[in-house]
């Protein structure tokens, strides 16, 4: 999953980005609103973290610009102002959640995971599809309650496919959600990851969780479950 963080305070941005990368996300870092908007337009983001107190274009305007661009991904607002009026107005302007500075890093991570999951239509932190269960908090994957060890890249590919379960995900999309730069656009790498995933999740070959659509990409075929509606 690819995240964008727009925060002018470099040390804070760096530590947030590091923590998010450790959690398995691809992170774009922007120091001001203009740069942030460029990243948002250039790369397919899954979520943006926007500081409201930005130099240049104010954070609130960045959110409005993004929404006017037709951007649908969730936006998490960071704000130093704890005023409810600002929170209500910010959420009304198109943000989806807010965190008041100074926040706990784990709190930020939990909010990011929840927003991503909800945006993908999953309402529970454990994504369950057939016998496959992916816990977004602990990053644990189980198949029929048996723990499966995945590498960081494999996990990212699985999370991406599972989040968009039922939809076709192109190789390019997967690449961009896994790598920060587009220097390595060798689609064979994706094929290798998907192949390894299939083996780990479905060693007997009875489930067939990932379908290959020639020239178009991949699709998670198992039905979503565990969604209390």
């Amino acid at each position, binding site marked *: 999953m690819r995240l964008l963080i727009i925060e002018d*305070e470099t040390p*804070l941005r760096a530590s947030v980005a590091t923590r998010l990368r450790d959690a398995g996300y691809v992170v774009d870092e922007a120091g001001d609103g203009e740069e942030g908007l460029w990243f948002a337009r250039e790369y397919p983001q899954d979520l943006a973290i926007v500081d409201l*107190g930005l130099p240049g274009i104010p954070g609130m305007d960045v959110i409005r610009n993004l929404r006017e661009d037709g951007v649908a991904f969730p936006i998490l607002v960071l704000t*130093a102002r704890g*005023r409810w009026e600002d929170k209500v107005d910010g*959420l009304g302007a198109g943000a989806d959640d807010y965190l008041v500075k*100074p926040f706990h*890093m784990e709190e930020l991570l939990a909010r990011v995971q929840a927003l991503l999951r909800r945006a993908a239509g999953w309402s529970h932190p454990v994504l369950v599809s057939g016998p496959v269960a992916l816990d977004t908090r602990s990053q644990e994957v189980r198949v029929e309650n048996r723990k499966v060890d995945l590498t960081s890249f494999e996990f990212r590919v699985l999370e991406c496919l599972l989040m968009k379960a039922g939809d076709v995900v192109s190789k390019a999309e997967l690449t961009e959600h896994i790598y920060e730069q587009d220097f390595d656009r060798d689609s064979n790498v994706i094929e290798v990851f998907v192949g390894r995933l299939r083996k780990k999740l479905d060693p007997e070959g009875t489930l067939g969780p990932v379908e290959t659509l020639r020239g178009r990409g991949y699709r998670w075929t198992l039905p979503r479950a565990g969604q209390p509606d």
Partner: protein
Amino acid sequence: MPGTLARRLLVASSLLLVVFLGLAGAALDHAFRQSSDRATRDLLMSRVLGLLAAAEVQPDSAISMRGDLPEERFYRPGSGLYARILDGAGQTVWASPSVAGWAPDDSLPVKPGERRYDRLPGNESGLARLRFGIEWELESGALPTYTVEVAESLAAYAAELGRFRREIGTWFVILGIALVAVQLWLLSYLLKPLGRAVDEIAAMEDGQRERLSDDFPSELRALTGRINDLVVQERSRTTRYRETLDNLAHSLKTPLAVLRSTLSAKGEPPPELAGPVDRIDDIVAYQLARATASGHHGLASETVDVTELAEATAAALVKVHGDKPISCELSIEPGLAFRGDRGDLAEVLGNLMDNAWKWAAGQVRVSARRHNGLSVVVEDDGPGLPPNPDALLDRGTRRDLRPGGQGIGLAVVRDIAADLGGSIEAGVSPLGGARICVQLPPERASGPAG
């Protein structure tokens, strides 16, 4: 001195009117009496002359009258018109038939040529009397002196005076009423711009006007212009104040965020550092929220649509607590408005509703109505407040409260309510959970707190 300008003016000018009309009445009365006195004197003199014309002196100095007396009333006893002629020794030598029994004790003769006019107490209104001394040359060459005395009842005069006074009185009353009426009209005409200024200020307080208009009379314009300036200053001061606080918040909290993220970057932060950071964070958060609240009052305040703000807050909370299916019931009096600062009301609603959302099992109810200002009640079906909810509302406990609990939010709401002269009450909701009721009084009655 209490009262209104109009009353002051009315009282002062009415007093002036009474004094003026009183003096004018006294002067007129005096002039009337003077002139009627003169008229009486002339009348009596003409009667004296009439009598003299008819009188004849006998050789023995007795007096007799030729023909009829000039006035019929001289014949009727007690008619109020009397005449006598006295000789030099004061003895009555002739008296009109009307005199019958009338004898003023001091009917002394006067010197020839002298006219003495006086008044005698008599029945009812008294008498006016004229004595006129004459010398009568007889054929014998003797020069006896006589005094002709004519007295006439003043009843007619008194009646005339009474009539005059009544008439004057009537006219003065009419004049007085007319003058007061004119004065009232004048007053309302003069005070109309003041009244308009008051109306416009009220309209500003109700949020229907931004500023006072510029077409006031020049005497008032100095005042209304100053009020406009003050309102503009107040608004920009509030904006500047908020911006300063925002900057302060940003410059305090971002380093705190850096500190916290750096601390937790290498696993679990050491508690001797994490503790103080949390504490600083709490204090900064609380004090900033407090300082930002209650920015402005009075003329610079706005009219806030309670329904709209509550709906926006609910929508925001639905987003924030996206995983929690809460059914929120808003029961707000239609058209309900809050006169004051939008930020204050947003803070009250936001904190109370956020707490309710956090604790609720599935149901939140927000009700607001007009009751002594604005009454907001937020309820949930959660576990309710701790056994001693007042401790949460107590000022002394605020530093021990952790964010995320009921703590800082309730403390901020309590302080805002107190600043606006209102109150907060915690209890148990029929839904099963907590029920927080905040009462914000109408602004004009409360005024800003120090």
